[in-house]
């Protein structure tokens, strides 16, 4: 009974301190708000409007139509013209443009014999006729951009010559079950809940014990009858509410601004989120019992945050990662939450069907809490 009232005392004290700390309080609201808008708009795997240059050796009407057709795809945007290839390559090196289209002098002949433009003549098999129409020189260091330009390789050119488009039958038919319009935000916004919670939850609690130590409060606290586990629980409970507020902001705004659907039930989502919030808070507490000062606590938070962003499946598909990265990802609570939250929001699964992830989050929290309470010694040694 006394234990409960001591937890309550710590809890109430944390709330009061949080209320007075305007900066932290502001961050609770501003972090999800700003990050959501930033990431929601910025993270876009459909690459568009890549700045490119043009070296046109032919200077014919046909070459100009070719450029217009390419521009119409919106993948690239011709921003500069260069006299020769050397100048263009220098511009790529200076990062003014990411690629350059080199149109050869004989573009008309090449086009005339090109298979997709084909003037009725059967596709040629000899050297000369199979030559491409023009050449792209690309800054290959960014694979995403290079990939987008490579996708132009087989661009049909029939329209260019006012010929009827001859549609070929694709080898595969692809049916998109979820996110049929292929909008990146639909996948990013739910994932962002995981990232923002990882960041704020771990940050808040990782400073929790360290701050008491730095300000000298700990010396008083440990001479009172309060037990480690009571102190730990009292410190994380207020932040569960904070986490809930943040999730509401992200989901509400995600729905309003990015039109993210809410296919699953809110109850299922609340369950998964609660587990994840607790796991993150507990991780923060463990950090707090290891770090000697607030700077160290921040460093350790970032140490956890980066893999959570990169390996959890938020940025890159989990299944595409090498084995070793997958093992590391499995340890992180964010990975499991990422699966759960996308499952509930986008595919309306019942979380009980994703037992594996639920069990991991629960286990992580229980073990973490035990480690934190065990590591937190009630003395100054």
């Amino acid at each position, binding site marked *: 009974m*006394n234990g409960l*009232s*001591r937890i*309550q*005392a*710590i809890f*109430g*004290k944390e709330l*009061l*301190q949080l209320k*007075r*700390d305007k900066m932290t309080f502001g961050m609770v609201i501003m972090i999800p708000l700003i990050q959501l808008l930033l990431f929601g708009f910025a993270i876009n795997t459909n690459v568009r409007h890549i700045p490119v240059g043009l070296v046109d050796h032919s200077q014919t009407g046909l070459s100009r139509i070719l450029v217009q057709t390419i521009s119409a795809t919106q993948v690239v945007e011709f921003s500069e013209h260069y006299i020769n290839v050397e100048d263009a390559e220098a511009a790529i090196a200076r990062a003014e443009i990411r690629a350059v289209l080199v149109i050869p002098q004989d573009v008309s002949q090449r086009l005339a014999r090109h298979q997709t433009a084909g003037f009725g003549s059967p596709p040629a098999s000899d050297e000369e006729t199979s030559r491409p129409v023009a050449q792209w020189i690309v800054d290959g260091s960014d694979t995403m951009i290079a990939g987008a330009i490579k996708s132009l390789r087989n661009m049909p050119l029939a329209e260019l010559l006012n010929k009827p488009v001859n549609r070929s039958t694709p080898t595969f038919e692809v049916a998109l079950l979820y996110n049929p319009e292929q909008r990146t935000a639909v996948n990013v916004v739910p994932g962002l809940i995981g990232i923002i919670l990882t960041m704020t939850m771990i940050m808040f609690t990782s400073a929790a014990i360290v701050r008491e130590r730095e*300000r*000298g*409060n*700990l*010396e*008083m*606290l*440990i*001479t*009172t*009858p*309060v037990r480690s586990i009571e102190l730990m629980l009292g410190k994380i409970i207020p932040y569960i509410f904070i986490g809930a507020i943040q999730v509401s902001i992200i989901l509400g705004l995600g729905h309003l601004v990015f039109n993210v659907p809410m296919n699953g039930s809110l109850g299922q989502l609340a369950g998964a989120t609660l587990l994840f919030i607790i796991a993150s808070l507990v991780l923060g507490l463990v950090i707090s019992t290891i770090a000697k000062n607030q700077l160290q606590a921040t460093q350790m938070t970032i140490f956890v945050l980066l893999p959570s962003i990169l390996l959890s499946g938020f940025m890159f598909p989990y299944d595409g990662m090498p084995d070793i990265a997958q093992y590391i990802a499995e340890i992180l609570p964010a990975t499991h939450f990422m699966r759960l939250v996308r499952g509930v929001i986008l595919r309306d699964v019942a979380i009980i069907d994703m037992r594996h992830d639920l069990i991991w989050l629960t286990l992580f929290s229980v073990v973490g809490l035990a480690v934190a309470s065990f590591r937190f010694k*009630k*003395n*100054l*040694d």
Partner: protein
Amino acid sequence: MSEYAIKASSLSRNFGEIKAIQELDLEVEKGRIYGFLGPNGCGKTTAIRLLTGLLKPSSGEIEVLGFTLPKDAEKLRLRIGYMTQKFSLYDDLTVKENLQFIAKIYGLSGQTKKRRVDELIDLYGLEEKYSQLAGSMSGGQRQRLGLAAATLHKPELLFLDEPTSAVDPENRRDFWEKLFDLCDQGATILVSTHYMDEAERCHKLAILETGIKRADGSPEILMREMGASVVEVAASDLRQLKQDLLHLPQVITAAQLGARLRVLVKDSVADPLGFLRQQKNIQPDDILTQVRPSLEDVFVTCTGEGRL
């Protein structure tokens, strides 16, 4: 039940190379005020932390209120109060919130809690500061809040680490009145200080230097059995006289106090006045008076260079 609240024997604590406490023997009787007197860094805080179970001793035994430390430290928690040297309540909580927090931690609730907090606020004159943030209070007010918090659960043993270091003399007197009140109600108090006048108010005290106990006992006995006599000399050229006297092996120290020189002469000299009279620098019309030793004299004779 033993008559001692605290018993420690050959207590030592090292921090790496630093020997913060060395072979400390200590006996604190119940219901008394016991003082730790010593300069900065002599180990007062370390000793208190050892006796409250916050630090583990490198060697030696500690028994506090019948419990063996550090083993039974948790069992002591409800029975001792500790006021840290550095203010350790929450700067960003008000006086009332701080006290209510401590009250809840000690298991008080509802009316009992409210009554006790009001009682303390009244007792320590904190009414006007009721809803002021602790961080914005003056040093003296904070000290009173600290004492209020440390005594909230009516502990039978109270540790106070330099409680009056930021307090003016008048408030210090009031503060000590409160300590004697607590003592009258049966509490045992261990207080550390580097003020002589405070040390003199203690029933008993220990003089610490570099982690070693140099002397202990009641102030009266310490002064009586100091092992030196005190003579005040009123002369013209005190600075020169001081230099000359310090060369004598029988003289422990000489310190200038305004127009007089306070000279400590070893007890091996049977007649200190006669002895000083014979010195060549003392003029026949200089006035020599033997005076009652003060605690500061005790301190000087048992610490530093002049140690007997």
